[in-house]
């Protein structure tokens, strides 16, 4: 499975929580969901923490791209 986008991860996480909180989920399924949910939570946090605020100028970026062989 390819990495979900932040939005996809967040949406899936919230759907999992909803399922866990509302339905009678069998144990195996609950554990599987929990594991997936933790993974998604971590993924979302990582995305936010890994990203460093960055402001670039397009002109500079285009120059830099041109300089590459």
């Amino acid at each position, binding site marked *: 499975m390819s990495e979900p986008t932040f939005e996809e991860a967040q949406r899936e996480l919230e759907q999992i929580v909803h399922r866990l909180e509302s339905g009678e989920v069998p144990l195996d399924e609950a554990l599987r969901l929990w594991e997936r949910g933790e993974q998604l939570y971590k993924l979302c946090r990582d995305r936010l923490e890994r990203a460093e605020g960055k402001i670039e100028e*397009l002109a500079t970026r285009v120059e830099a791209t041109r300089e590459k062989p």
Partner: protein
Amino acid sequence: MGAFNRGIASWLGRLPTVWVEGEVTELRRQARWASVFFTLKDPGDSACLAVSMPRGQFDALRLDVADGDRVHVYGRPELFEARGEFRLRALSLERFRLGDHLAAEGLFAAERKRPLPSLPRQIGLVTGNDAAAKRDVLSTIQARFPPASVLVAETYVQGPRAAGSVIETLAALCRQPDVDVIVVARGGGSFEDLLPFSDERLVRAIAACPVPVVTAVGHEQDTPLCDLAADARASTPSVAARLVVPDLTELLQRLDRARTGLERGTRRALDRERQKLDRMHERLGRAPQLLVERGHSRLEHAAGRLRALSPKATLARGYAIVRARDEIVRAGGDVEPGERVEVELAEGGFGARVEETR
């Protein structure tokens, strides 16, 4: 006479820029001329007005205006001194009711509007070197969502080159792989300053842009046509910034709430299963005793039935069993007179001899 013409020219030069509406006739355009000439005719009373427009500007609009087209011309009355001819010097030109025309094409339709990404990988910002709009967008983005990545593309935001330059900038930003939303921000200005943002080519480029576009052009009361074509329109540059990035604090809270919910939900599922297991275990523990009890009662039942079937009870009521030659005697003919028979009673019995048979 030259002084007279100059005087009239300077007097005319004090008149404000105006919009004039009419039908194009006698359009004259030649590559070696610096200007394009045409006559605007009022379809109502056939009044005419000579118009000239710098050729570069006219061509840049790429409107394919031809004789008979109804147009709006934005310009300044002036006197061509050398010949004493009065005309309108056009600064811009648009098809009559361009907005209605584009709306009829469906360019502004609500179903065309795309949702903005809730967390763009990179935000493209198209802005002038006009410090205020750029600063407002950047500072709001950084305050609200520090991890945001912004690619700033400065361009002309007023004057004859603006529309074309904004279009090129949009295209350049779209070529950047991570840009998934674009903000076009331009601070307030005069009606004339904002004209490029109603330019048909720019409006079409915004509608056709592969990446969602948010516009914040001019002040609240201005409605350049590009605002109508954009996926979202903001009243100010900082409002545009709020539309393109989430509030980090809120986002983190929401994530943490989801995680708490995740743990609570899983624990609940675990508890439920554990209780179910405990109940099962308890029932299992009670099983042997239950089996013994059930065996007992089955035994009792069988014994009762056995007792009911035994002849003892019948004998107890005064009946007797008579046997001869180890066979139960059921009829008088079964025995001979003088034959010995055994009589069994509820308590003990005795031997006897048959006197007679009947």
